[in-house]
């Protein structure tokens, strides 16, 4: 390799950026990704899986006790009728959004660097949505009538209220989960075929072969496939923006000071992407080290993700300031009280944790050294997710705990079961992610191969690392999706 990784990052006019280092051939990409699934289970995997599974078991206990005893086991009570349950719900839905942003929005914008991380980010989305769906389902109290949220014809002649944002939420999140699974599966088909064709045992051959659907990689198949992928990306893009907007309307459509504000949809979406990218960074730092993928998930990818975190973190900070300004400028004493109470009241500690983690900590990414330093990225990504959890806590609990009648004021304290459900949801998330990296190719090899220089039928000889001439090469034929999936 002629240039070091740092030099490549330092050269902004090198034409098409080198996304994959060490100039591997196609087979080397297949080998490094598929081998991670085919090798015997490493000890290190158990070191992650066993604690995650233990937390999942804790979730099982907490939810069983919740169903037996009722939601009184949690710390919420009037006036704080929503607390950690909905905080966790909004937190997890938000985490999912970065996966869809990477897989759909960056695809539409032709950001080829997404190919190294989109598969695992999409998996993260699906597992985050699973965690998210858990909380509204278990917090309803009588879980056995949960099906009332769906428009199922029934003997009572009763229908759900489609005019309620809470019902919009049911549809938005379940559609989001379903479409994310479809998108992920379509992306997996060619790689499942790779696993099928490499399989050494009958069981592997059968299982991967079954889900690969008989994929033959023919150009006539790729033609429809790429069309489907593009359409799904185009559908997922407005969908992901709608999902967190609808989640924010759970609050914004109410008349409560602190919730009733029109800034919520864009502010929630920015926060969702912010926290989701932080989670992608956390997971990718672990995966690329554990599976030796440093040349596929490079510092350049982290550099880009850090920039997105800087932008969205600053947007979130701007939204905090706007909320505060508006509460003063509106002249509404209830509104202004709520915000002063947030910053200076009994929950001021949570508010300032939120400000420190979400607004101040990402500012470190103005510096390239921080954007390309794995320890700093890893630490910042965890700090940001702590901050984003507190953001939802602050919005929900501080708006509720001092309502219009001072005699009804209260202070929410979590119980051991609140903590168990939150930790348990992390157990669910990491258990699923561990199973994903063990059984499925965690990098979309058929997409990564398209960004290698030799994949271009017109430029194999000219596609040297960082060769500026590639960017000036005339496009061939019609402007079809370039380097698409």
């Amino acid at each position, binding site marked *: 390799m002629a240039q070091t990784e740092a030099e490549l990052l330092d050269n902004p006019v090198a034409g098409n950026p080198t996304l994959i280092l060490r100039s591997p051939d196609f087979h080397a990409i297949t080998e490094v990704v598929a081998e991670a699934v085919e090798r015997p289970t490493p000890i290190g995997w158990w070191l992650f899986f066993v604690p995650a599974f233990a937390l999942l078991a804790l979730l099982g206990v907490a939810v069983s006790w919740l169903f037996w005893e009722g939601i009184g086991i949690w710390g919420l009570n009037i006036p704080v009728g929503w607390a950690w349950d909905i905080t966790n719900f909004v937190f997890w839905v938000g985490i999912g959004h970065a996966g869809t942003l990477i897989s759909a929005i960056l695809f539409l914008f032709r950001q080829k660097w997404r190919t190294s991380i989109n598969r695992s980010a999409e998996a993260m989305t699906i597992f985050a949505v699973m965690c998210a769906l858990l909380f509204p389902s278990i917090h309803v109290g009588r879980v056995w009538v949960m099906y009332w949220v769906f428009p199922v014809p029934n003997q009572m002649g009763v229908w759900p209220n489609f005019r309620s944002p809470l019902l919009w939420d049911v*549809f938005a999140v379940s559609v989001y989960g379903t479409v994310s699974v479809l998108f992920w599966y379509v992306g997996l088909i060619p790689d499942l075929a790779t696993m099928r064709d490499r399989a050494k045992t009958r069981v592997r051959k059968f299982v991967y072969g079954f889900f690969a659907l008989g994929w033959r990689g023919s150009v006539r198949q790729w033609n429809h496939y*790429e069309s489907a992928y593009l359409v799904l990306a185009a559908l997922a893009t407005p969908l992901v923006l709608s999902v967190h907007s609808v989640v924010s309307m759970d609050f914004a459509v109410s008349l409560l000071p602190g919730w009733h504000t029109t800034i919520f949809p864009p502010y929630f979406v920015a926060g969702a992407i912010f926290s989701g990218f932080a989670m992608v960074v956390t997971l990718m730092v672990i995966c690329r080290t554990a599976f030796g993928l440093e040349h596929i998930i490079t510092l350049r990818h982290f550099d880009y993700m850090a920039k997105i975190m800087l932008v969205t973190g600053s947007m979130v900070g701007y939204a905090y300031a706007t909320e505060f300004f508006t509460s003063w400028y509106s002249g509404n004493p209830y509104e202004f009280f709520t915000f002063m109470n947030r910053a200076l009241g009994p929950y001021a500690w949570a508010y300032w944790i939120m400000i420190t983690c979400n607004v101040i900590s990402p500012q470190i990414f103005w510096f390239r050294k921080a954007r390309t330093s794995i320890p700093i990225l890893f630490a910042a990504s965890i700090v940001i997710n702590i901050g984003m959890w507190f953001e939802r806590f602050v919005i929900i609990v501080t708006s509720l705990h001092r309502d219009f009648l001072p005699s009804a004021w209260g202070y929410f304290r979590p119980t051991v079961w609140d903590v168990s459900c939150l930790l348990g949801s992390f157990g669910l998330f990491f258990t699923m992610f561990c199973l994903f990296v063990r059984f499925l190719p965690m990098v979309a090899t058929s997409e990564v191969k398209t960004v290698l220089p030799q994949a271009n039928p017109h430029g194999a000889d000219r596609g040297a690392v960082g060769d500026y001439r590639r960017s000036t090469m005339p496009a061939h034929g019609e402007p079809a999706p370039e380097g698409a999936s």
Partner: protein
Amino acid sequence: MPFNPLRSLRSKTLLVNRLPEGPYFGILAEFATPTDLYHACERVRDEGFTRWDAHTPFPVHGLDGAMGVRRSPLPWIVLVAGLTGAAFAFGLQWWVHASAYPLVISGKPYFSWPAFIPITFELGVLFAAFGAVIGMLALNRLPMHHHPLFQSKVFERVTDDAFFISIESWDPRFDAAATPKLLESLGARSVELLES
């Protein structure tokens, strides 16, 4: 071959993969690089072959043009599916709130359509996404777990790093002697005759 009504029905059904009849499925030729494959495809297209295909581990940019493959009609399927979903959602909400179960909520009219838009949008997206996936599989005749191409040992590398052209035996220009020679002359690394 004697008349078989079932076979005749199947062969006319859009969703069933049609395979050439007779002893041979066709010819499979391997090429070393995307560039070799690209130029070979241009030649095979210009020779006038129609029932043939190229196989690659990843979508090679511009290869559909080099083969003369038309644009996928899939977006039209998605459009119809999406509009169906949106219309269904809007109609259901209208019927429930204005007819089946009318309730006064916040003093609004029964048919308060702006509040129906989020669910209309979500179900439109849901149906469109299913239309895209099911439509793609149907157009590609998938799932199809058995195919004559899978007999070939080298074809296992099609999902790794190998590039192929397959010409099927029912192509009018197919010739069991001349076609392999043509592919060899285009730079094929290996040429293989596959049975049905």
